[in-house]
């Protein structure tokens, strides 16, 4: 029997790249994306693209010029966002997105600084930075994409993994309960706390655009399906099935106590805008308590010298 094999052709990188370049500009969102970077590396069924689309929609809705918008992200799947957006973006070291963004926000107060990072980056290694930035009320907009595990490194257990959930490092079930992120951010002093899933893209876009308008530390949690890292070991199915799960198992409750927003495996959880207040942000407090007092002291000294 003669077996005819298909002739193998070498991968033509140039042709593939020209194809990708040719596609750029077809979509109206492409002017916010770096040319030649889409298609992104995220898995089919991943919710990160949805969060990125809603963020672009929120920026467009608020008419923030691209020059005045900057995005800082940490390490992980979500950290790739900085590489895809055609703005002033920075891909920092693991967990240090908020310190970098704090410096950026203090150096240029007119700039809208968004921290776009994952749960493993913001709450595992960068947990302290987040609570202190929230306590100081630095003018930062934090978007935390929560997929309940460390996705990029192979689905290890993260501080947000619910109790009894299986991951690659907890094959018999997680023994630790996960963080309740909105409650934590609220307790640390964030002025705006919201949680939505990727099944609620309109509400998420509205929430992000509200957060971009606010002054102070805002926190938006976006729950995203992770079919490879979290869905597969927990038998949650593909990304689409996880989206159906979010449709059936979420309850929109705006203004609810964030204490109730705990997530347990395969149980109903609440989404919505939990907290929305105003309080003086870091620069305002610093100007009032340090800068103005030092200036008045210096004036007194100068007067003394003149006399």
């Amino acid at each position, binding site marked *: 029997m003669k077996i005819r094999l298909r002739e193998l052709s070498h991968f033509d990188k140039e042709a593939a790249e020209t194809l990708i370049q040719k596609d750029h500009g077809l979509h109206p969102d492409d002017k916010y994306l770096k040319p030649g970077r889409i*298609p992104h590396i995220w898995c089919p069924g*991943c919710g990160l693209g949805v969060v990125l689309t809603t963020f672009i929609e929120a920026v467009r809705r608020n008419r923030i010029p691209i020059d005045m918008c900057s995005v800082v992200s940490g390490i992980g799947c979500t950290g790739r966002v900085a590489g895809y957006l055609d703005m002033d973006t920075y891909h920092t070291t693991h967990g240090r997105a908020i310190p970098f963004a704090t410096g950026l926000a203090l150096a240029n107060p007119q700039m809208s600084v968004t921290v776009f990072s994952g749960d493993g980056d913001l709450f595992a290694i960068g947990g302290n930075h987040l609570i202190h930035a929230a306590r100081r009320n630095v003018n930062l907009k934090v978007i935390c994409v929560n997929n309940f595990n460390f996705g990029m490194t192979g689905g290890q257990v993260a501080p947000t993994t619910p109790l009894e959930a299986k991951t690659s490092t907890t094959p018999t079930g997680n023994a630790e309960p996960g963080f309740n992120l909105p409650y934590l951010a609220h307790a640390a002093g964030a002025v705006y706390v919201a949680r939505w899933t990727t099944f609620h*893209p309109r509400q998420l876009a509205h929430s992000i655009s509200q957060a971009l308008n606010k002054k102070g530390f805002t926190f938006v949690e976006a729950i995203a399906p992770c079919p490879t890292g979290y869905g597969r070991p927990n038998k949650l199915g593909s*990304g689409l099935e996880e*989206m159906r799960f979010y449709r059936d198992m979420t309850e929109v409750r705006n203004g609810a106590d964030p204490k109730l927003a705990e997530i347990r495996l395969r149980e109903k959880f609440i989404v919505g805008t939990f907290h929305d207040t105003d309080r003086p942000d870091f620069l305002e407090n610093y100007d009032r308590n340090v800068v103005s007092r030092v200036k008045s002291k210096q004036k007194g000294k100068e007067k003394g010298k003149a006399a």
Partner: protein
Amino acid sequence: MKFWRLPLDAEAHSIPQGTVNIIESRCKGCGFCIEFCPNGCLKQSKRFNVKGYHPPELIFHAEDCVECGLCSLICPEFAIFTELKEAKKITEDDIQKVTTRYSRRDRRSFKR
């Protein structure tokens, strides 16, 4: 059920009609747009794209697209978007169509 007249404020409103544009080479076949399109305008096609996924395609009732933009918002791949084609006036046929669509007789309501 049959409506015997148009709504009184029918002239103040219009039905937007959109065109769905699909950039097929970007699609990774997650199926979010097909599942969550409120009017059920999309279905999975049988052909393959460059990556080997089945991209979505418009079904026969393509004029049902009301340019809500949910598909472009929910697509993680920046592969689908809608454009406003025209905004047409409300006629009695439209009212009838909408009532049958959301009644149980329509087959597409069973899909969801």
